[in-house]
């Protein structure tokens, strides 16, 4: 394949993790402006896929992002190219304050727009503004998730990888987090969302892929997936 079709093109991606083949040759694309989800059960290889993209795990196959080969970039070069990951378990710096976490999000930047972006993040996530002098470790799980998203936004991402943003959150907080994700997408950020909560993921995304034990078994629009009997039985609890 000589020309890239999407912002992100993944071809025959394989990831071995702890001696296990976690991802067994998957291919998918994410086009600019899209919101795509990767759904599947625990252990299907979703997180390994995101970690491979973020260069946190070694992988084989092709990962092309905006014309660049991700294999050739170290993890710390990705954000400079507009690729951000909000990791599983949020990964906020517990011993840094909320404001310092957000500043870390803009670490690679030296432009004049950082202050304005901080204002935008505080508008989107007002709780963070209230708690900006608090240590991130003292926040609730939902607030930490908001902080992790806000921190990623401070890097001005073009493509945002979100790993299980609903994990461990109360239903009301999950709704709030997804509202924020929807707003971010509406602002033009391309999103690849990994979720166990298939119902929610298919509600907010345009397209989706279903992963089962390291392979993509279904690929369709979110609407069709939500109507697919196999998805309904396996992931929507029917």
């Amino acid at each position, binding site marked *: 394949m000589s020309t890239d079709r999407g912002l992100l093109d993944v071809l025959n991606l394989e990831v071995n993790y702890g001696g296990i083949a976690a991802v067994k040759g998957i291919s998918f694309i994410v086009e600019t402006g899209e919101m795509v989800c990767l759904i599947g059960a625990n252990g299907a290889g979703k997180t390994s896929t995101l970690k491979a993209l973020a260069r946190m795990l070694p992988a084989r196959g092709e990962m092309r992002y905006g014309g660049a080969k991700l294999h050739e970039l170290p993890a710390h070069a990705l954000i400079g190219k507009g690729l951000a990951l909000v990791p599983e378990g949020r990964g906020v*710096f*517990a011993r840094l304050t909320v404001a310092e976490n957000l500043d870390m*999000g803009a670490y690679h930047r030296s432009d004049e727009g950082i202050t304005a972006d901080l204002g935008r993040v505080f508008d989107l996530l007002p709780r963070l503004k209230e708690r900006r002098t608090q240590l991130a470790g003292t926040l609730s799980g939902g607030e930490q998730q908001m902080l992790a998203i806000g921190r990623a936004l401070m890097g001005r991402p073009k493509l945002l990888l979100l790993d299980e943003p609903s994990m461990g959150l109360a239903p009301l907080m999950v709704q709030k987090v997804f509202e924020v994700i929807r707003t971010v997408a509406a602002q033009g950020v391309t999103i690849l969302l990994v979720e166990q909560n298939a119902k929610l993921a298919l509600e907010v995304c345009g397209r989706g892929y279903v992963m089962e034990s390291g392979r993509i078994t279904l690929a369709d629009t979110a609407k069709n997936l939500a109507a697919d009997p196999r998805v309904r039985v396996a992931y929507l609890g029917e």
Partner: protein
Amino acid sequence: MDIFLQQIFNGLTLGSIYALVALGYTMVYGIMGLINFAHGEVVMIGALVALAVMAPLAGSGLPGPLVVLIGLAAAVLVCMALGATIERIAYRPLRNAPRLAPLITAIGVSIVLQQLAMLIWGRRYHSVPRLLPDAPHEIFGATITEVQILIMVVAALTMAGLMLLVNRTKMGRAMRATAESPAIAALMGVDANRIIMLTFVIGSGLGALAGVLVAANYGIAHYHMGFLLGLKAFTAAVLGGIGNLPGAMVGGLLLGVIEALGAGYIGDLTGGVLGSNYQDVFAFFVLIVVLIFRPSGLMGEKVAERA
């Protein structure tokens, strides 16, 4: 009373030096979980390099403090380069190895540096020229020299500068973030290799300063001076809570004072059986007591289960 105050002065002088060295241990531990046992030798190299530069300049007519400043600059530069080299050659290849491997490597580096210093400077004790004003001043019956005051002031200013760097700058923020999670910091664009090397460079610079201050205080330097000093500074870091910067400072000062008071009173306490040459016992006695009652140190957060 005057003995007490006297030993407090002496202890704070010594403690300021321990604190500077302890910071080097604690910074490296904080960022990569490694006890860099070679750090004491870096301090020794700092003292000897400074001496090598200062000795020929001492009789040149340049003002003493300027000569010390030149010697200090040379020592800091050499030690920073040395710290960076040690990190690059000895520790980076072992970044993902089991914890015991870098620890043993650290001991190896320590031996190599000590032997190297012996080859260059020989086994003898070198006397350090008196270049700093050391006029004694009397305060409430105790004596404090100008060198002692200088050591405390320089150490305090340096530590204040370090705290500003770590807590108030972008670079310091990246250091703290990397200490917490190198992988997540990388997602923010932080090059962990750069930050870790920087940590070694800063720690080694502080070590060089400490080495010069030790030599200035005791007027003596030799190739194995880093061993005991390093061990005591490490004790100070553990006492304060290893990985914790203010802990290293408090631990260093406290250890210095405990040692000085111990040396001052041990004769009286034991009826003259033990003399002040048992001074070194106190550091390790304190270490044992702290490890029994507060394994995470005075200001440490949680018990680290790392080698």
